[in-house]
């Protein structure tokens, strides 16, 4: 077992040594893999950020409920209490007609014109803030429908349209990323496979000799598998760096846009989980690509 481990370790380090002998071409291969991996990673980071941002907006959503005119204030208060009892409602704010008018006068600048009216044209209004855990579009629609059925309720406004559209777009982008990731992963397999194929061609004599003195297919293949592993891992590290660079380059402009909208939103970079996944994926792709390529091409090399 220890001998077995030592042998694998030796091959692992040995293959790294061989790669470092051709620094430039090794780096180029890793860079190509890195770019291929960085693309979906960057997109993933951006979409995750966008989803986080819309999630925050979602939570700021309110349902505006206008009661029928002439509804007494006591009834409005009862209604507010009733709605706020629901589990999916965080808070209900009652804006009485008087308060509404006062605010409107203050904000609109029509103060005097409105003061000329002898009757308050505004109805009582309720601002319903849904609980953060129940902000799915479906749920909000359902809540709005329920409120609409309550007595004395006139108009229920739920403006989730744009959030819905944005979410649909993000959903589509997410799916596109999955497809792009699959294609790029395939690309990485091809890159690694082709590099290993060339590697095998260059070391044909060595492979023949090793087979002559009794090296099994597995033995001959092992160093190539480790090369593939290193290529994939190196590529993943480069992808991580590229993504970090892209995110830090976008952080300032995105922050500026967010602050224009009164948000303190900040672009998040790769978290630990995603980073780990990236490195593991890179290493696995390198391994699989070299496995497929080496298994296929080493079989063709027999001593003669």
């Amino acid at each position: 077992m220890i001998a077995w481990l030592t042998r694998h370790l030796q091959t692992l380090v040995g293959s790294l040594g061989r790669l470092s002998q051709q620094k430039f071409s090794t780096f180029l291969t890793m860079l190509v893999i890195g770019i291929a991996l960085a693309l979906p990673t960057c997109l993933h980071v951006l979409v995750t950020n966008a989803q986080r941002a819309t999630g925050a907006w979602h939570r700021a959503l309110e349902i505006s409920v206008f009661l029928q005119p002439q509804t007494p204030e006591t009834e409005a208060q009862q209604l507010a209490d009733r709605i706020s009892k629901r589990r999916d409602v965080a808070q209900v704010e009652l804006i009485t007609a008087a308060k509404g008018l006062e605010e409107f006068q203050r904000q609109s600048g029509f103060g005097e014109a409105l003061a000329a009216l002898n009757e308050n044209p505004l109805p009582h209004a309720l601002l319903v803030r849904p609980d953060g855990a129940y902000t799915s579009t479906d749920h909000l629609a359902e809540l709005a429908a329920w409120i609409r059925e309550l007595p004395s309720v006139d108009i229920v406004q739920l403006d989730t349209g744009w959030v819905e559209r944005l979410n649909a777009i993000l959903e589509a982008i997410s799916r596109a990323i999955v497809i792009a990731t699959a294609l790029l992963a395939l690309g990485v397999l091809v890159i690694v496979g082709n590099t290993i194929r060339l590697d095998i061609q260059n070391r044909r004599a060595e492979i023949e000799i090793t087979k002559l003195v009794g090296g099994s297919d597995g033995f001959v293949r092992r160093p190539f598998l480790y090369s593939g592993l290193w290529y994939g891992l190196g590529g993943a590290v480069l992808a991580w760096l590229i993504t970090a660079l892209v995110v830090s380059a976008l952080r300032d402009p995105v922050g500026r846009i967010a602050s224009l909208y009164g948000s303190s939103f900040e672009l998040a970079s790769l978290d630990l989980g995603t980073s780990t996944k990236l490195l593991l994926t890179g290493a696995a792709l390198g391994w699989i690509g070299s496995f497929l390529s080496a298994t296929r091409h080493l079989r063709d090399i027999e001593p003669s």
Partner: protein
Amino acid sequence: MIRFDHVYKRYPNGREALSNVSLEVARGELVFVTGHSGAGKSSLLKLIALIERPTRGQLIVNGQNVAGVSRRKIPAFRRQIGMVFQDHKLLYDRTVFDNVALPLVIAGVRTKEIGKRVRAALDQVGLLGREQCLPLELSTGEQQRVGIARAVVSKPPLLIADEPTGNLDPDLSLEVMNLFRRFNEVGVTVLIASHDLYLLDRFPVRRIRLENGRIVDPGNAAADDAAPLLDPRKLLEREHGAPS
């Protein structure tokens, strides 16, 4: 050790390299396979090492019928055969030590044991102390000895050599041949393909002579005895006594 039974070898291009070859080499023998270039010597050795497979007939090596050795079992099969080649077939980017160690690494021998056995093998071929050289820093004769050390390092019961002295001058050839003889003395069956007449003259051991893929002289295992050769005087006598 080796038995050919009506073996034929025809290459894909239609060339018949061996025709109806039947012969037997006993355990512990030292045998030459001779014949002109193109006679089929290399083909014969390649069949033994399963580099090629017989087209017809039966071949048994070390108790195993080669027909029963599947592709996957070839590596294990080859590990019981030490092979020496005219062009050495060394790994030129590895040290002498790594080259000789290769069969042991393949066999999964422990690192410490590898060091001991590699040095022992290099000692036998007179190259102790050159472990860290690269093959190209050595002379041709020394490279060939590295090849021999690699062939014997895992102590295989059978050693086959294809024109092992083909690129060497007479003195070096003798040296290499003496090495083979020494391995043979400790029980290794040795089969050497050679058309080096000068060398053959000095080693009156059993010779299997091939011509156009057929055995024209199977040699005589009983009459040929390598023992007198161990006496240097006899060797000298032979060298100076035979003017042809």
